[in-house]
């Protein structure tokens, strides 16, 4: 296994001066596989270290930044389209994750790569929102009857909707965790505390503490490790930003986590950020959250999972136990999402080979 140069350089961009061509080669591949090339560009630019990057490498960083900016433009446009589509419903959706970072113009959005738009609406409004989106060119993505049923019955969102022309995807949520999850954050609290956006009328964003708690929850409940490092960097930046700019942020974090039943995700989120990225957390907050720590063997096991799970998903970062760690993270993610009586039939169903798996890959040789 080769060293994880990416996390290192993101923490200390000045290290760019000491890297040779072979090290840049590996670094670029790790950053690309983690979806963090543009984020690396930003870290180096903000530290004034971009000039230290050899020109053949730097052009790849610039290109990745151009893609990220284009995706951000596309997201803003998408929000306009969604606002028009929902104008008649009287619903003012709360933007989650990436869409919220962009709409609220938070620093964490810079150099971040965006995909789907995530919306949170009151559960009783979800049918009206779905109908309005269907009437404006979004259509349910191809799912079989089992997946449809699964989403509608157990999940915290309806099946994703894709725009027929633009291929943009919206996830409409009525909660931030599945109905079957161990933790049961009450979405009404998040909706009630959400703030309107002067820059994006028709939308709201969660209160800063809620943005942070959702980010930490996402990080620890996903079960997927593809974007784990990106999510960890998000959490680090949100904490740094709100910690410095939002009065009363640190004091309200733990009480809010308790109100939303998200203390454990907060504990692990803060711990991972501090250990891996050196995120500054006030001692009083740390001590208060520490009181909710699980037993120490569990903490040790989670530290190991975090070390493995937050590495870039590149071949060079794979150790002898990485595959096992990813599997355990996957199982844990599902374990937290639903009780065993639901989980086992679901995993069996998912493991059963289906006759016509929808392949996302293109046939080669068409226009590249």
């Amino acid at each position, binding site marked *: 296994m080769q060293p994880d140069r990416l996390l290192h350089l993101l923490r200390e961009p000045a290290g760019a001066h000491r890297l040779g061509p072979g090290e840049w*080669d590996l670094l670029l591949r790790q950053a690309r596989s983690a979806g963090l090339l543009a984020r690396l560009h930003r870290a180096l630019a903000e530290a004034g270290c971009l000039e230290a990057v050899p020109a053949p490498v730097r052009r790849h960083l610039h290109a990745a930044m151009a893609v990220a900016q284009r995706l951000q433009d596309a997201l803003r446009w998408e929000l306009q389209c969604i606002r028009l589509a929902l104008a008649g419903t009287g619903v003012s959706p709360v933007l989650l994750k990436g869409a919220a970072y962009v709409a609220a113009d938070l620093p964490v959005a810079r150099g971040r790569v965006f995909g789907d738009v995530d919306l949170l609406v009151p559960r009783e409004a979800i049918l009206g929102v779905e109908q309005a989106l269907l009437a404006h060119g979004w259509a349910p993505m191809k799912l079989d009857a089992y997946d449809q049923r699964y989403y509608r019955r157990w999940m915290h969102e309806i099946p994703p909707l894709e725009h027929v022309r633009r291929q943009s995807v919206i996830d409409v949520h009525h909660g931030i965790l599945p109905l079957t999850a161990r933790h049961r954050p009450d979405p009404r609290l998040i909706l009630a505390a959400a703030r309107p956006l002067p820059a994006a009328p028709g939308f709201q964003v969660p209160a800063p503490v809620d943005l942070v708690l959702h980010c930490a929850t996402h990080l620890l409940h996903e079960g997927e490790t593809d974007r784990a490092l990106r999510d960890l960097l998000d959490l680090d930046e949100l904490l740094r930003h709100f910690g410095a700019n939002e009065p009363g942020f640190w004091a309200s974090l733990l009480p809010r986590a308790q109100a939303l039943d998200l203390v454990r995700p907060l504990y692990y989120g803060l711990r991972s950020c501090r250990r891996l990225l050196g995120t500054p957390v006030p001692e009083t907050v740390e001590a208060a959250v520490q009181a909710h720590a699980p037993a120490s063997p569990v903490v040790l096991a989670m530290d190991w999972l975090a070390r493995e799970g937050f590495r870039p998903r590149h071949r060079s970062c794979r150790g002898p136990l990485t595959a096992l760690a990813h599997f355990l993270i996957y199982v844990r993610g599902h374990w937290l999402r639903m009780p065993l009586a639901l989980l086992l039939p679901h995993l069996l169903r998912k493991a059963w080979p289906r006759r016509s798996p929808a392949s996302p890959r293109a046939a080669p040789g068409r226009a590249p």
Partner: protein
Amino acid sequence: MKLSQLAFGEVRRRLAGPGLCLQTGPFTVRVRSAIPAVAAGLALLYAEHPVAADEAFCDFHVRLFRPMGPRRWFRPQVQFAFDDLVPFKPLPLDHALPMLEWGLNWSVANHAHWYLILHAAVIERGGRAAILPAPPGSGKSTLCAGLVARGWRLLSDELALVDPETGLVHALARPVSLKNTSVELIQSWAPEAVFGPCARDTVKGTVAHMRPPADSVARMGEPARPAWVVFPRYVPGAAARLSPHPRGHALLTFAGNAFNYGLLGSRGYDALAGLIEGCACFDFEYSRLDDALAVFAALADAA
């Protein structure tokens, strides 16, 4: 050092092990593959290309491999990987070379956004470049190969790399991909040209690659100033006819066929508008390469 100066055993050893680093125009590509046909094909088609040092920074890391499972033995397949990413469905094993070429095109088109990347062939003479955009079936590659075999310099048969800063087009000088009857046509037009093996029944029919002329590879570091945009159209039996093509239409066509026009935003528009501004735009109907050669020679000789 050129690839042809490397012993074939060493080519195979590098491909199967740490990878073979090839320089194609502005890109260094590290290719890995244990498939013997890939080694033989590369040694033949890229013989004139420089080999970069093992520890060099590489723009793209690509790999051709045989997927595991029953298809390892039963109707064997080949798969292309861009580093850890597998962007395509597998193909029959004897399509390994076309798959490498398509995969390299994909790698450039999806990552090299410091260029405006147009879907077009580019050839050069006297310092001026002709850009041939490519509706399928237009005979673009045939025309490109035909002219390249008679003194025009090959920049690319598939991707025009336009530098938005300078307006110059950069060369890839990679093998020219020919399809179906074009293969025999060019083989008889230029008997000295070196061809790789024919891959049959690909999505594009029979495909074979022509090795770029040594001079085109030796000069791949020289960008060229675009002077002509020519929309070729092969019409059986037709006499060669060059007619003006509306510039606004040419711009819209490129905007539609460029790989990253939208991504570059206003820089993309400025680069494209600048390119069209500096070029004479034509439609070109032809059926015989002799006629085409004469028409293009007249273009290049005109002041």
